């Protein structure tokens, strides 16, 4: 039986690996995708910072076992900010393609 922790850790690892590969590409779309994947990985990572537990309420004293709700609050903020940033990055990439005539991160073909 694969544990919850293993699944969480390996999915974060895979997301970061793919993200880093993509942000090292020279065209803007893969880079934006890579940044998105990394931000997903970061969100999962933040989420797991409250420790991984199943079926524990986020309330002190209701049960012997409880889970810290603060990381989930942090993740919510991070998701919203990350979403806005991705939207902006995509808009900027499209604008760059229009203004510069290509989709290289350096703004020139073959650079």
């Amino acid at each position, binding site marked *: 039986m694969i544990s919850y922790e293993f699944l969480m850790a390996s999915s974060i690892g895979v997301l970061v690996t793919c993200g880093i590969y993509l942000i090292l590409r020279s065209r*803007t779309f893969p*880079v934006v995708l890579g940044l998105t994947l990394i931000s997903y990985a970061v969100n999962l*990572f933040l989420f797991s*910072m409250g420790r991984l537990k199943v079926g524990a309420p986020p309330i002190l004293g209701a049960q012997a076992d409880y889970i810290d709700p603060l990381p989930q609050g942090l993740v919510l903020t*991070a998701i919203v900010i990350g979403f806005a940033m991705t939207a902006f990055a995509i808009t*900027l990439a499209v604008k760059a393609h229009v203004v510069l005539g290509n989709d290289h*991160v350096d703004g020139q073909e073959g650079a």
Partner: protein
Amino acid sequence: MKDLLILPILIPMLTAMITLLMGDGLRNAKRWLGGIAIAATLGVSAYLLSMSAGGEIVTYGFGDWPMPFGIVFVLDRLSGLMLTLTGVLALFAYVYAITGPDTKGPSFHFLFLMQITGVNGSFLTGDLFNLFVFFEILLLTAYVLVVYGSGPARTRTGMQYVFINLLGSSLFLVAIGVIYAVTGTLNMADLAVKFAQVGAADAMLVRASAYLLIVVFAVKAGLFPLYFWLPHSYAAVTAPVAALFAIMTKVGVYAILRSTTLFFGPDQGFVENLVLPYLLPVALVTLVAAVLGAVSATKLRTMAAYLLLASIGTMLAGIGLFTAAGISASLYYLLHSTLIMGALFLVADLVSAQRGPDVRDSFVAGPKIRQPLLLGVFFCFTLIGVLGLPPLSGFLGKAQILAAAVASPWQTAMWATVLLTSLLSLVAAGRAGTTLFWNTSDTLETRSSEAGWKSLPIAGLLACVVLLTVFAGPLTRFTEATANQLLERTPYISSVLESP
């Protein structure tokens, strides 16, 4: 009284929202509104500075949550000083902006005010996640301001600026996550307590997160080797935005100073003096790399951006000494260099405009400058300040930093580096001045325009630098008190954690 702490955020933010509601028209009304808001913010900041001057640490807990659970704003001497500096620089940059650059695109006033909100928030907050949020506010507006006015150069550097800072934000979040997982708190004063108690099992985790945090701050400050995004962005952006961005790198410097003194300092268990061995050498390498960049720059604005980096290197070298004298000297130099770098970006814009759209500020022979005397005086005055030549405050700042290095093991390296790079930047500045002002044809570029009101904010910034020089004595006493307050952590921690 303590409720005033919220105003440096609230005034610019609410005014920004109002200017957004006013739509694309009503330019004059928006200009006045923004100007009044910035002046009011400056007034409040100056009052907060006077409040902090006595050494009292004022805290404002949002929603009156018991510490360390709620978000808290903390005002000490350093915060007060940085807030006031932001206000002064923003006011002059804004005056320059409303002489014309704010007509190049929509929502300029909104973005400018939100940028001030983000910067002020970063200086006031006492919570690590809240610091992240304010970083995001200032970054998101900076992303738009970088490409403000459009054009290929701005779009190109804007993209790189956005990508590197998005990555920086992700690293910041990872660092915050690990710190929270290990210590269970994100309140900076509480962290200062909890870091000292971290067990051996979590030593590597907490150190890794601390290094990540410093890397993020170093990206903001533009430290070697994380500065490559900076020169081309700063050289491409609209002049008043570049002038305002002079404070953005200082946000990174502030974060490094705050974190090294508050929770990565002495007696902190596994994160004890974590960055201290590296800060000074890295700062010196930054200084050398930046000055080499300034010498090889092909236009004035790129040179200005590299000189900005050089000033960061100098002040972080002073902070890296980690003595009261070193930090105090760096803070004085920070005040000076922020204002004078703002002025240099504005002067570069004037020079560029008067040389016409063909040559702009490139170091090549070009048409005659329309107002050579006015611009020549501005240029000369500003560069004397930037290079740290006597009699202006740049000289006093550099001399204090060098004096603070006496008897430290880094004395030889620091004196040699700072003095040699000063000489090199003098060469770069001399080359720039002779090319721009003397290597000219007799014809006047017909498309160039007179400086007019644009000389007012530049003169204002230069007057501030003169004031820094004249009042160097009291200011140095204040920065010394600030440095002592930073190194003496206990009052900070207790006033936050025991705040009612």
